[in-house]
């Protein structure tokens, strides 16, 4: 509507103003444009670097996630695990407690479950082939024990830095980060004790009796993982949105002084929130051992403790949105593996693509929160 005119005083070509609340569909449109723009940039890069048809690459990525029923379930399972850890870090981050220790909290959780499986492992009956094995504990006893042990371990790992922060004001980022390395060494140590031949490979625990393994649900071996994380997602949404504790977390996150002023015990909230965080990380560790890998290793969390922070942040700590952001990340990872196999590309290519897409998604938040104005004549207000 407005036409470009020469201003009497020098006005910059662009200037930026904060937007008021945006109509929701506009936000969706901006995000969609960002993804399309990212895909165009990625396509250009694919053509330049690999001379492949980008559409083939994209369709192979989709194929890699959705191509078969098995691939689809693996996709859901991977989403569930990443989502679970993202849920775990959310309350702490919302409180502005920078918990970089999810990796370690998951690891000790996994270690606790694996320890239960190992110390009550199947016993071989006799030495003649074929070998026969018996489990000393029934799954009805062992699995709940593993779950409790994992949650307890996760809580301990999260609550130590929380207590130090609450009482002595220590830096939680460094503290939780260092706890990761302690957890890794702890896992390495126990594997050395449990596997004395020095290979440092635990392998599947209880492969014959499947003792301590989560059973199938609805005919799906990952059924329980997906169900449990689904329930956790709903619970976390309600907890943050509707519970008094969830409100306290928001207040402490916004301003500790305000929280104190209105009578919230900040120390208590910090410790209590990290108990929740640690417990969910413990559950993630339990699911990784009992419902997924049936073993423990130093890299069982596979960096998800850090990826989860990005997933949670991208979703603005909304558990419902985290389903989508974790889907996005896992989809890119699965697609990466698929194009590496099909086109013989190094997986770094897909890391580059993931980086570009995430850059655009994060970048578009700028356009949602701010408006870029070209040099124009302003309406008098």
């Amino acid at each position, binding site marked *: 509507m407005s036409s470009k005119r020469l201003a009497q005083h020098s006005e910059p070509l662009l200037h930026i103003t904060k937007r008021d609340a945006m109509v*929701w569909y506009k*936000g*969706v449109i901006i995000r969609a444009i960002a993804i399309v723009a990212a895909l165009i940039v990625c396509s250009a890069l694919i053509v330049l670097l690999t001379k492949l048809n980008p559409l083939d690459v994209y369709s192979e990525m989709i194929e890699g996630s959705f191509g*078969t*029923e*098995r*691939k*689809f379930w*693996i996709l*859901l399972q991977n989403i569930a695990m990443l989502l679970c850890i993202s849920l775990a870090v959310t309350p702490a981050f919302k409180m502005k407690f920078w918990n970089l220790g999810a990796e370690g909290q998951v690891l000790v959780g996994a270690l606790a479950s694996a320890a239960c499986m190992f110390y009550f492992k199947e016993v*071989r009956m006799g*030495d003649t*082939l*074929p*070998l026969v094995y018996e489990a000393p504990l029934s799954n009805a006893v062992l699995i709940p024990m593993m779950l409790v042990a994992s949650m307890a371990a996760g809580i301990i790992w999260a609550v130590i830095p929380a207590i130090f922060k609450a009482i002595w004001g220590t830096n939680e980022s460094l503290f939780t980060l260092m706890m990761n390395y302690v957890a890794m060494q702890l896992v*390495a140590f126990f594997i050395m004790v449990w*596997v*004395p*031949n*020095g*290979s*440092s*490979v635990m*392998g*599947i625990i209880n*492969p014959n009796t499947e003792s301590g393994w989560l059973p199938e649900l*609805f*005919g*799906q071996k990952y059924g329980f993982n*997906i169900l449990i994380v*689904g329930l956790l997602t709903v619970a976390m949404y309600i907890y943050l949105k509707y519970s008094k504790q969830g409100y306290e977390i928001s207040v402490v996150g916004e301003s500790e002084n305000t929280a104190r002023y209105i009578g919230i015990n900040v120390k208590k909230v910090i410790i209590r929130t990290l108990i929740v965080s640690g417990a969910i990380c413990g559950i993630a560790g339990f699911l990784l051992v009992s419902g*997924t*890998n*049936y*073993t423990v*290793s130093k*890299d*069982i969390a*596979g960096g998800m403790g850090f990826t989860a922070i990005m997933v949670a942040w991208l979703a603005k700590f*909304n558990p*419902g*949105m985290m*389903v*989508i952001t974790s*889907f996005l990340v896992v989809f890119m990872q699965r697609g990466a*593996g698929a194009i*590496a*196999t099909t086109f*013989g590309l*190094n*997986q770094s290519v897909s890391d580059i693509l993931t980086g570009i897409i995430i850059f655009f998604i994060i970048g578009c938040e700028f356009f949602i929160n701010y408006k870029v104005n070209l040099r124009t004549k302003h309406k008098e207000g």
Partner: protein
Amino acid sequence: MKKLLALLLVAVMLFSFAACGGSDDTGSTGSAAADDFKIGIICLHDENSTYDNNFIQAIYAAQKELGLKDDQVLVKVNIGENEACYNAAAELVDEGCNIVFADSFGHETYMIKAAKEFKDVQFCHATGTKAQVENLPNYHNAFASIYEGRFLAGIAAGMKLNQMISEGKITADQAKIGYVGAFNYAEVVSGLTSFYLGVRYICPSVTMKVQYTNSWFDIAKEKEAALNLINSGCVLISQHADSEGAPKACEEKGVPNVAYNISTISMGPNTAIISSKIDWTPYFKMIIENYKAGKAIPTDYCGTIETGSVALTELNDKVAAPGTAEKIEEIKAKLISKEIKVFDTKTFKVGGNELTTYSADVVDMGDFKPETEAIENGAFTESSKRSAPYFDIKYIDGISE
């Protein structure tokens, strides 16, 4: 409203997953005609790891020699030693693979799990120990008598040490070499001992110091370990770990290096002497040909120098001592004719004594208890009772940590 959209998207996802759960399409796994034969390879890392690259190059070499098309060979890289391995194997079966091969020790239990489920598919696993005990018709282990290759690489190192002594660069007493090991595990111990015995065959005064990184692939740690060894007086380095860390450290310091898996001449043109390697091409060809001919794949296969499985890479004449190539050929012939046995008990001592009996953990029941007498006819019978190495004596005299 945004929340509503989020919930809607969640609902769509849940719906799509319910819809998918209802379908009952199952991948066909019947025996394949020669044309639709496929083989799937599962690798722990990608081609940046010398270890995995060795397998990747071998399957492509076998593909070329057997005239297989590109879509008949599927390589999956960066597959961890966990459920990801089972899933990768199952996906390869879905894609019609008749043989699935995995390259890392930690893949084994997941490969066995897959083998039990997909009975029509052959599962082959390098470096594993459980095929004999599991006794499944479609699960197989493979390795090679790489200790012979290490011994030959040790010959080249010994020649270099002798050259350094005769040139007056070091005295015979200073002939101390270093070895960067991944883990304190039989495969590594067997390799470092056979290498040391090869060096000592040529240079009797040599001693060796070992340092472990506790990781199969860690460029920084391997480099650091190599530098530590060099700083403690080691005049030649070898390694059993999968990155270029040690060769590069050696090139920086100008210390000769003997490598493993691939030729490192490009990384260390002035220090790399030679590498021993397992060439997996003969094994890949054998399993593919056997499968196509309807013949069984050996339960536990051990390749040798004669099968072409144990090989040496190109000798770097710029660094190697004169006469090395001839000496290697001479010793190689003697290994083949059994005139020389690598682990001849007369050639080494343990705690000052000759070894007359040793019980090794050959049958892997998961209990880590030794049960098999390994000394026969005056030698340790490495890799003959099981392809994966079981020489785990730490250490023979002359080697220390």
